[in-house]
């Protein structure tokens, strides 16, 4: 059903945006190569189920783990490179990973890989089952993120983001927390990739190219980096808009790009970031609480 496919696309985008938000929003580590981990998860899961005969239920966390291992390695890099340099490094990683998928025979090279539909206790997954799985994953990840800002981990990550040296002076080891954020974020991205692969039934290297990373980052930024649910909002808007604007066909990309430009000009902190239009309205509505952190 068409609605289901759109809902699945939204569910995948929400998971990706939330996972990026952990790294870039909460820990403040700019990354422009998130699609690489999405792809690593997708290819891992595809190979494990198609070639090694693993059940989907095992391949799903395995995809997350493999992505997280690479993510932790990147995290170890990020300890040495900061800010813009880190962003550029992650772009490079995205290109390297796509090139590996594109050239190595094991990954189907330029022909791509066919992925079997998951089977669970004799039930062959259709779009409905995939959608239910995505809803569960989204709730779990959301609960984790919602808990984050008030937890010790979240506070430490915030410290690392805002002022590394100050955080270090208070006994928070910034390196550990950065690596940890990369590990968690890429783990979720890897699992999302696994779901994507089994939903599509066919993956090729260009599905995980640099523009996809930019797309995910736009979602998180549009909604509000570092906010709990901003990335969800961004994911919904940016996934729905090409569908909604399909009727303007020729001008679709123009409308989409224009919206992003206007947004960044007038609401750079994101739709529900601090002091944004929506948040002020919301606070005004209830006139209690202080807003902000």
């Amino acid at each position, binding site marked *: 059903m068409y609605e289901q496919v759109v809902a699945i696309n939204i569910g995948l985008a929400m998971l990706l945006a939330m996972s990026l938000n952990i790294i870039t929003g909460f820990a403040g580590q700019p990354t422009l190569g998130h699609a690489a981990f999405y792809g690593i998860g997708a290819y891992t899961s595809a190979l494990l189920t198609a070639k090694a005969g693993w059940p989907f239920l095992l391949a799903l966390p395995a995809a997350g783990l493999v992505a997280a291992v690479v993510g932790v390695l990147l995290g170890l890099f990020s300890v040495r490179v900061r800010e813009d340099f880190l962003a550029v490094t992650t772009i490079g990683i995205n290109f390297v990973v796509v090139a590996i998928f594109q050239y190595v025979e094991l990954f189907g090279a330029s*022909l791509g890989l066919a992925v079997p539909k998951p089977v669970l206790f004799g039930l062959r997954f259709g779009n409905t089952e995939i959608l239910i799985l995505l809803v569960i994953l*989204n709730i779990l990840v959301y609960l984790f993120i919602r808990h984050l800002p008030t937890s010790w981990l979240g506070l430490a990550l915030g410290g690392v983001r805002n002022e590394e040296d100050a955080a270090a002076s208070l006994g928070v080891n910034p390196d550990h927390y950065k690596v940890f954020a990369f590990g968690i974020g890429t783990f979720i991205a890897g699992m999302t990739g696994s779901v994507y692969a089994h939903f*599509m039934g*066919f993956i090729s290297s260009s599905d995980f190219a640099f523009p996809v990373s930019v797309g995910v980052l736009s979602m998180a930024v549009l909604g509000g980096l570092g906010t*709990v*649910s*901003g990335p969800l909002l961004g994911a919904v808007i940016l996934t729905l808009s090409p569908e909604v604007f399909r009727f303007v066909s020729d001008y679709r990309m123009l409308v989409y790009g224009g919206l992003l430009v206007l947004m960044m000009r007038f609401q750079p902190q994101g739709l529900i970031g601090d002091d944004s239009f*929506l948040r002020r309205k919301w606070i005004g509505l209830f006139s*209690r609480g202080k807003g902000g952190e």
Partner: protein
Amino acid sequence: MKSRFSLSLLILILSLGLMLAGCGGGGGGDKKPAAENKTPIKIGFFAPVTGPAAADGDSVTKAAKLAVEKINKTGGINGRQVELVAYDDNLKPQEAVSIAQKLTTKDGVVAAVSGSYSHTTRAAAPIFENAKIPMIAAYALHPDITKGGDYVFRQSFVGTAQGKAGAFVAVNMLKAKTVAILNVDNDFGTTLADSFTKYFESKGGKVVSRDKFTMVEKEFNPVLTKIKQLKPDLIYMPTYSGTGAQIARQAKELNLGIQMLGTEGIDSTMEFLKVAGATADGIVITTNLNRESKLKATQEFIKDYSEMAKHAPDMVAASTYDCFMVLAEAMRKNGAEPEKIKDGIYKIKDFEAATGIIKGYNKLGEVTKNVQVQIVKNGAFAYYGEITDAEIITPPDK
């Protein structure tokens, strides 16, 4: 603090609600137009109108509109009009999948045509197969596209057949003994280069070098210089127009003087002939549109398309146009319900189309027709030969 969490929660609930709406909703989609004779017959279509393949997307969209206009002008389908439901897939598989879902469950099309590339068509094909709605891929080459089942067809030569045809031209028409291969690094270039090599070597030829490049490569001087020193009889270049035109231009600048053989990938009026200009003269290609064909269908198509688009048609346009003509023929003869259309397509024999006589479709859904060999003369494609050899043009059936 309090208000912040409430807002967050509201957004979560809204977004999950949207997702869950997908679980339950959708019952309201309109049903396929049944036998009432007045309702228009809807045919779905998708093409990369935006994104990196926009030039081809534009060509095929024009061809699709032209074809539907033509069908309606010549009496429609037994009195019923045909309506085109066209979407842009932005060359993204994920979008192709949602378009395929939309066409099959929302728009109520009875058949569809893919005017897109391999990976998007490959991702969409199983959806048409499961929905039991016939789809014809106009020019996507990936061998797996037709392998899913009965409802997916291909209007152009599968990659393996065209590679073989290229080698046949190299051996028998251009009398080449040694060849250097320059292929674009995706499924298109790789499949063609592989099958070319296999046939060429089986006929005693020798591949002296093989180089690959990406779709957006601009600089070919180093590799062409290397090839110049190897002195092959021929350069085989399965690639697209953008890169093909650059190769032609830079080969001229280097005074390479080696015969070049291309594929349908550079059969493009605007993107290849215009960009390469005089440097394209003498390049031979394997394709499926013979500009000098005596067939009425071909000449009418070329005339109508040139009038509409203000430039000469290319291979992707002709193939797309033919997909619609084949669908119309199947519907007129066999009925306009999806299953009957599918059976109707299998029944087609010796059908006169813009890309030549379609001899029929095999059990995979691969077309059998002659391979056209064209040469660039004075900035236009002209007749060079035609491959009728059954060994070459018969597509694989598994």
